[in-house]
């Protein structure tokens, strides 16, 4: 049976964070990522899905896709919300910056765990964060 290579999941409740993690763990393992990369990817998912749930003040959605290139496998993830937005993205990326009294390690950490991060945000409209990770195909 062919593995599912793309999909989406809503982020509306706390429980959706775990659902997103499980979904992406299965997809990344099936795609052939190594154990450490799977953990990096799932951890990034957890940070970004939680940010939607905690910070955006609105519902959101996670979309994902497995990518193939000769000799390489990749995963592309997108987190979109329709919430309050991030006024200063550079500041939000700083280690330790938080508006919620938490660790402020999410965005800066995700940048280190993934190969690519792209943040589009408009105050009062919402935030879209995409990340990508590549690994050697088995």
């Amino acid at each position: 049976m062919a593995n599912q290579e793309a999909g989406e999941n809503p982020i509306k409740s706390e429980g959706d964070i775990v659902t997103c993690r499980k979904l992406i763990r299965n997809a990344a393992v099936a795609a052939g990522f190594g154990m450490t990369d799977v953990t990096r990817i799932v951890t990034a998912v957890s940070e970004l899905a939680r940010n939607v749930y905690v910070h955006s003040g609105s519902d959101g959605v996670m979309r994902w896709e497995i990518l193939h290139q000769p000799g390489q496998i990749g995963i592309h993830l997108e987190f979109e919300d329709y919430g309050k937005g991030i006024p200063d993205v550079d500041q939000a990326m700083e280690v330790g910056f938080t508006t919620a009294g938490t660790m402020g390690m999410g965005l800066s950490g995700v940048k280190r765990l993934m190969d690519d991060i792209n943040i589009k945000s408009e105050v009062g409209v919402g935030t879209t964060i995409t990340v990508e990770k590549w690994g050697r195909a088995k």
Partner: protein
Amino acid sequence: MDGENSLSVIKLKNILLVTVPDDPGDDIIHELQTKVLHAIEKYQSKGLILDISSVNILDSFFARTISETTQMVALMGGKTVIAGMQPSVAITATELGLHLGKAISTLDVDRALDIFTDNFKLV
């Protein structure tokens, strides 16, 4: 709640052994803190062992709870030991820049028990 995805808290003499499931949700992590503190109070435990050998994800939320709980347990006179972290989790946590505060780590629960029974050679 099914056993596989819930927290188990066991009292061993004056120590508390808490086993965390592989992919703990926020509810379980919240529960961890309150359950642990109540049990420490009830049993007057001198120590807490968090067995995380099944855990395959540790994000900043979980790390913060561990670090806070360690501090709270210390205020109540106890010592916290994190046992059995998986290599991929340790690498990811380091890259993410996480720290677990004053919690000590050991390779497994046996070695954590050694710490409390003074057989431990590496303190």
